[in-house]
């Protein structure tokens, strides 16, 4: 008979979990493994709320096994390191993102692309090497293998740094991989939410010109004055879209709702690239003529490898880039999820775990 969650492992842990597809979270006792020789154990101080947490809590993708403790934008302070850990010591400010394991012997892993390893293990809701289920960062303590832990630069606040661990790497990786970082280039960002707002900041950090493409005219002022975007296009305004046709070297599309690709492909210059980082759950219509006539590309990208996640955080440290966050107490999480569903947040909720997660 399977052990109950709080007896699976030797050390007690406490968090909030969803028990069923309602997605409603509530206090949950479970346990973490002992700190192995390559493990880093840390006290969780903050955890970002990613839209994926909402999808998983409600089993939108059909892959959830309950109970689920979500959270993969986790930051905190190291309390213990295993005997073979070299990069971290007690007291370090660290973070864990979307992954906690992979096979370490395939081509992807050899190329520091653990995120594309066929055996990659998600931070929550996935079977770990020892057969137990992984639990995420809406909890008091985290244990992860050193390879999957990143150092948070001293000058980055932990609360506003947390969302970089998923939102940050998810947009940083394709900006780099698809060559959209040369000063003077023009990059579009579709969708101004958790991913989109960080994409604007990174793109500006690279010195590229940025246009935000959004359905919400009300976001324009902030996009330009606060986030530093150069232009703002309302995608439902045909005149604005027409005027911008053929002007962008690349577009990062963060929107996961089903939406038309044609107008976005039209915004690209010849040889431009449209990179999808949101994943709509139905196929989108692809008119082939515009791709062919302009030698354009539609590509996808999924988070990033660990080496590049550290590189991203260091870049953020150097350029003082953090997410814009609304810090909330643990017991606000269900309300936060409801607001997130309506995109009512500027631009990421972050749970103040250290101060508000109280075990019963």
């Amino acid at each position, binding site marked *: 008979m399977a052990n109950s969650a709080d007896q699976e492992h030797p050390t007690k842990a406490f968090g909030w979990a969803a028990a069923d597809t309602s997605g409603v979270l509530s206090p949950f006792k479970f346990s973490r493994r002992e700190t192995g020789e390559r493990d880093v154990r840390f006290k969780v101080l903050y955890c970002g709320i990613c839209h994926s947490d909402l999808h998983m809590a409600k089993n939108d993708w059909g892959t959830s096994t309950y109970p689920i403790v979500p959270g993969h934008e986790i930051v905190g302070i190291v309390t213990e390191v295993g005997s073979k850990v070299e990069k971290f010591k007690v007291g370090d400010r660290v973070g864990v993102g979307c992954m906690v394991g992979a096979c370490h012997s395939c*081509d*992807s892993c050899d190329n520091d692309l653990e995120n*594309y390893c066929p055996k990659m293990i998600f931070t929550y809701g996935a079977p770990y090497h020892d057969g137990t289920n992984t639990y995420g960062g809406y909890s008091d303590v985290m244990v992860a293998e050193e390879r999957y832990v990143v150092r948070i630069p001293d000058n980055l606040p932990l609360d506003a740094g947390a969302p970089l661990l998923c939102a940050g790497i998810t947009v940083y990786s394709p900006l780099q*991989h698809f060559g959209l970082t040369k000063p003077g280039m023009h990059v579009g960002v579709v969708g101004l939410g958790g991913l989109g707002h960080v994409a604007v900041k990174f793109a500006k950090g690279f010195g590229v010109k940025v246009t935000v493409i959004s359905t919400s005219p009300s976001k324009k002022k902030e996009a330009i004055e606060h986030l530093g975007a150069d232009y703002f296009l309302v995608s439902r305004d045909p005149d604005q879209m027409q005027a911008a046709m053929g002007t962008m070297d690349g577009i990062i599309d963060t929107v996961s709702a089903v939406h038309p*690709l*044609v107008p976005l492909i039209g915004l690209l210059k*010849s*040889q431009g*690239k449209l990179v*999808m*980082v*949101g*994943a*709509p*759950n139905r*196929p*989108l*219509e*692809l*008119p*082939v*003529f*515009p*791709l*062919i*006539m*302009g*030698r*354009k*590309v*539609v*590509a*996808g*990208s*999924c988070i990033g490898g660990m080496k590049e996640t550290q590189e991203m955080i260091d870049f953020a440290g150097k350029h003082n880039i953090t997410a814009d966050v609304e810090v909330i107490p643990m017991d606000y999480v269900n309300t936060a999820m409801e607001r997130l569903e309506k995109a009512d947040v500027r631009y990421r909720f972050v749970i103040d775990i250290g101060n508000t997660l109280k075990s019963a």
Partner: protein
Amino acid sequence: MAKSPEEHPQKAFGWAARDPSGTLSPFHFSRRENGDEDVTVKILYCGVCHSDLHSVKNEWGITRYPIVPGHEIVGIVIQLGNNVKKFKMGDRVGVGVLVGSCKTCETCQQDLENYCPSMIFTYNSTSQDGTRTYGGYSDIVVVDQRYVLRIPDNLPSDAAAPLLCAGITVYSPMKYYGMTEPGKHLGVAGLGGLGHVAVKFGKAFGLKVTVISTSPNKEDEAINKLGADSFLVSTNPEKVQAALGTMDYIIDTVSAIHSLAPLLAMLKLNGKLITVGLPDKPLELPIFPLVMGRKLIGGSDIGGIKETQEMLDFCAKHNITADIELIQMDYINTAMKRLSKSDVKYRFVIDVANSLSQ
């Protein structure tokens, strides 16, 4: 007032379609005088491209009748403009899909005239002088020297003609998207005019080549004649299953509406699906496989002139030509019907010089 087809000084004769039935018949028209930059070509052969069929039937909605198709033209130089130094009388030359561009924009300056916003097609386009362009199903054509290619000596004129569109259309993306690393695995979807040349190029680049087709009867030739390493029928779920995640790149030459999902699934991580076929309606693109595998779908449209010459020289070096069925001019309507049913191995070529008679 629109100019009539007899608007230019030199008489010309060809076959044109006059309405969306697409039926072609004899047609008198005219060509401009040979200017300082021009070369006049007596046409020997012209390939029948599927685009010709789409165009005569106005399937893309952009045809203006009467239309003289043909953009895989091979012939002999019979007149040279004063500024033409790179060709001489009697040279064997080719004309492909383009006969003009602005020459001053960024893409023209990068030898990518095929992406120039003002590019002028060999047929069904408007020239800089406002007159319509007419293609190679005709006796002569007058072309700016920049858009004329030299046919290498060792390539036969008839079998080289299809290289001018089919050849460059697959060669260009194979180079641009890096589909040329020896030992990598290329899938070729569709075994027609474009597909069969892609197989030959793929083998010349040292790639492993798998043909992906809906026609099981093409397998024998694909392997034994064209040199493909393997063949899979895309409507056979077991074959597709076995091929999942095995290809570095796929070149999709199919112009019918088809499903992209199995093609994307056959790509490895970071794989590239390059589409060069021109379906007349949008396709469905599933996004999850792109995101989960960092895959991409890209397009490509013919190639620049410099690159077209490079492709012809590559063919000369590797003895690559198209597999053709040579036809008389008056067979053209039957050929078009057979083409619409993919009943050709793998390109019709019109023996213009010997069969186009007034």
